């Protein structure tokens, strides 16, 4: 239930953001993250973005994240 997925914000319209996660895009509610902006990576839980992922920390701690973030970069 708490399996939260990381995704990148592509576009914001009011409370809704279009996010992309490994090539799949969908709409999520961002009312719990008033400061979220386009380009941020967020954790999505049951249709809501619940926290912004700190990219620097992510890169520092994990090869996995490096791979993930590389895969998300525009080619």
């Amino acid at each position: 239930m708490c399996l939260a997925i990381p995704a990148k914000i592509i576009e914001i319209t009011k409370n809704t953001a279009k996010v992309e996660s490994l090539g799949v895009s969908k709409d999520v509610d961002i009312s719990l993250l008033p400061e979220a902006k386009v380009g941020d990576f967020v954790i999505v839980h049951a249709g809501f973005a619940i926290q912004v992922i700190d990219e620097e920390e992510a890169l520092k701690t994990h090869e996995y994240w490096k791979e993930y973030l590389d895969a998300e970069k525009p080619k």
Partner: protein
Amino acid sequence: MQKSLNKYISDIKKINPDRPINIMEVCGTHTMAISRNGLRQLFPENINLISGPGCPVCVTSLKDIDWILEIVKNYDMQIFTFGDMLRVPGSKNSLQDLKSSGKKINVCYSPMDALNFAISNPKKLTLFIAIGFETTAPLTAVILKRAKENNLNNFFVFSTHKVVPPALEILLEDRKVKIDGFLCPGHVSAIIGSTPYNFIPEKYEIPCVISGFEPMDMVSSVHSILKQITDKKPEVEIQYKRVVKKNGNPEAIKQIYSVFEPSNADWRGLGKIPGSGLCLKESYQKFDSKTKFPVKSIKPKEHPGCDCGKILKGIKKPNQCKLFAKACTPEYPIGPCMVSSEGSCAAYYKYERHGKD
């Protein structure tokens, strides 16, 4: 990755104290990650990873399950719930049974699905079964606010939402199981931050590490717990820094407490815990299914052989339940711990059935 994992394991062996160490994880996703990645086998024998009350579906009391089933049985409504709830056995039947007998039960991915349905179908009574810890409670809060803004008269919530820290205190006071360290939940902490756990090192001198979900996260968190033990410096440490901030998500916390207020809640295995539940505030009463749809008295009857209560407290492991993998399997579950994708019994059944304890 494998290299740094091995490095952590060899460091763990170096600082490993010469006594049994019980480390409790309080998050169903951690439970699954431990089983799936075979983490138990990586650590020295004296390090015992035990599951606590971290699976929201599993800790929901039988009384609440029966209450939900009674409402669903007696009223004509569109029900929305997360998939894990469907097969949880009540005293007599499950939501799945009621669905088979024609009740309109929809599995939803997001609470928003329930709200959107209610908005588009103003003549249909719609009930969202709200379950989960601090990670999910703000989502329910947001949809309730929208329901209010939209003046909905056909939308209702059954809240079984709970907060985690009071349950940890109960476990520590109970002392039936000695806990040497907590792996604190990642996404609950993404919302509440690290400060609500401060009482654990301060009052009980027990280390807490808020951990992520990758094998590396969890191994390095176990390492940190052992380091705190050997240094005799218990504290709340955030390993999952990329997501968890000290103050959590203040907006989400604000949303929770603008709609809910703390209440007593019944936990399976742990009993009634003061201040551990979230019930709807006075100003949201019109959405509360508990008062809007009264039911006759509920007499929950636990299955005599099911040890879920003990498993949720870390007193027993799933394979120590007499019914495990015999009468109770994911196909024919007897307790919620075998149903939920985050339940300990389900995790053991799927990944550790044939391994060592």
